[in-house]
């Protein structure tokens, strides 16, 4: 956060006298100010010769930090935002859409967990193709394991619709190869910057962000006794949720499964990650046939445990 010195040009109340008063209380930046007890600071200011001006400075700083949180909204404003901006994107599978009340929601982080070869990547590719066609939106696909297949996408496009130009649809699906969490942060921050500067009137709106798989980026940094790995994981989760909410993007991430208590499979990334996604879906495939099962493990408005069965065609 900004040092007080850098604010002087814009806010003349925060002059060198105010700065040296703050410095004597251990406050050099706005961040320091956030950690400080203001009643103590005001009491100190009252003992100073020019107390009125110092107190005005404190009020000025307070109005600066008042702009550093998100705006307060009442229930009606929230509801209006949800109705106008947070659309439900169809996945292209009737059964899944029915299960989820229409599909995946913009503004939410949806997590798809499943054992290896349960069809997570296929489902992601198919949903990407469907969103690019049906919703004429841009899809960003972050590929962490070289599993993105343009051919497969093209195949799905033809399957969904014969009449669309596959080149045009393909140009709306952007693939980024990311092999570690830091390059994911890079891509996400670039995306955030471009979305901010572009504003809501961009030529083609980003509607979906897919990270396949997020667990392969995070498991590397977890482990060890330090909290740094978990901090990176939490920060990634919050950045994804911020992008989703502020820019009305549906975020879809995949997670693998590991052996848990008694040999049963459980989603990777542990307890701390569990509280991050809005929706958690479990994908599994019946042995011997092509039928996939998808069930709700967690959802903000739907009961967990409901199951849908669907088939991803070859």
């Amino acid at each position, binding site marked *: *956060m900004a040092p007080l010195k850098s604010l002087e040009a814009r806010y003349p109340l925060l002059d060198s006298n105010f700065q040296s008063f703050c410095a004597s209380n251990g406050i050099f930046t706005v961040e320091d100010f*956030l950690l400080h007890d203001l009643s103590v600071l005001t009491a100190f200011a009252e003992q100073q010769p020019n107390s009125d001006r110092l107190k005005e400075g404190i009020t000025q700083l307070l109005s600066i930090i008042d702009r550093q949180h998100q705006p307060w909204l*009442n*229930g009606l404003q929230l509801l209006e935002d949800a109705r106008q901006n947070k659309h439900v994107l169809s996945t292209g599978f009737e059964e899944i859409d029915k299960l989820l009340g229409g599909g995946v929601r913009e503004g939410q982080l949806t997590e798809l967990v499943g054992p290896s070869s349960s069809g997570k990547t296929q489902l992601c590719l198919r949903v990407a193709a469907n969103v690019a066609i049906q919703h004429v939106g841009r899809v960003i696909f972050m590929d962490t394991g070289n599993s993105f297949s343009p051919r497969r996408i093209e195949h799905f496009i033809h399957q969904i619709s014969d009449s669309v130009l596959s080149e045009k649809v393909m140009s709306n699906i952007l693939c980024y190869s990311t092999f570690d969490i830091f390059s994911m942060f890079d891509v996400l921050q670039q995306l955030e910057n471009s979305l901010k500067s572009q504003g809501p009137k961009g030529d083609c709106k980003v509607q979906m962000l897919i990270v396949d798989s997020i667990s392969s980026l995070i498991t590397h940094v977890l482990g060890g006794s330090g909290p740094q790995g978990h901090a990176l994981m939490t920060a990634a989760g*919050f950045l994804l949720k*911020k992008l989703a909410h502020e820019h009305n993007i549906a975020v879809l991430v995949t997670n693998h499964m590991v052996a848990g208590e008694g040999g049963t499979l459980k989603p990777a990334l542990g307890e701390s990650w569990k509280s991050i996604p809005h929706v958690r879906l479990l994908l599994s495939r019946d042995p011997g046939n092509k039928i996939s099962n998808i069930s709700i493990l967690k959802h903000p408005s739907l009961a967990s445990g409901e199951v849908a069965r669907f088939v991803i065609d070859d």
Partner: protein
Amino acid sequence: MGVRGWIDGDESGREMLSRVLTERPYLHLPPFQKFPLRVGNVVELVGPSPCAKTHILMQAAIDCILPKHCGGLGHLVLFIDLDCRFDILRLSQMLRNRIFQANENKSNDDEELFLECMKRFLYIRCYDTLEFLATLKTLHYKLQKERQAQGISVNFLMIDSIGAFHWIDRASTSLRLGFDNRKALSLHNVYATVVQEIKKLLLLHPMLVIASKATILGSRYAANAGKWDRNLRTLCSPNSAVSSVTKKVHQFMYREYMPSIWQSFVTLRILIQASDVHISTDKNHNKSVYLSQWLMPPVSFVDSFIVNDVGVFCVS
């Protein structure tokens, strides 16, 4: 202040009684119904995600924003969303169902009531610790403004969930240059400030604080999950000896990770947990049963409840 003013006191016994009685926000929903809550209490809901913590907060919020003639408290609610997972559609759906139920026999205007209640729900989301601190620091002004604008005061302050930035705060190792009295942005300092700010707010604006907390350290929980399910099955069978069951429930542990300054700030603590047991309700829907137990004050009785379209309900 003169001596006489000091002798006269601030209010009479009758005034105090009427204030205290109205300031007792009684919540009829599980898991709160066992204890009379007071403004100034800090209630913590602990449990592994997902265990209906946010649902309980939503229903408590609805109880607060509904007017008195619909069985509510008619006050404002502040909801600070640190998890950034709040679903307003779910809240509005629950509220509509509640209003529909309350107005079944009357010809009141549901829509107007709905709009009035939704305006009483005040929401903010914070994407990091600094935003959270900035929110708390400027909350006093927000509360004053709302009190003037709407003419009613805030009764509940909800935080969902308090440990959301735990790992980020714990890993923050910013070294401070400058004087010795400069505070570092450490886990302890952050929560010392959070507690201090809420304490100052409570002096000026008496509120009930309800904070949810996800159990993010899960090793012991996993080892004990089975025990809970077995306990519940014995609990559900008609001839079970309740005393032996409740003894076992005490073995359920969760690992505390919040700084001690927050822990000592909490006055009431409830543990919530999902169970493997489902009960069938109407329309052939199976609802999973959740369990709640008071840890502070320690009560050995376990409540079970379910979540449906209208809200949280006790099952016995």
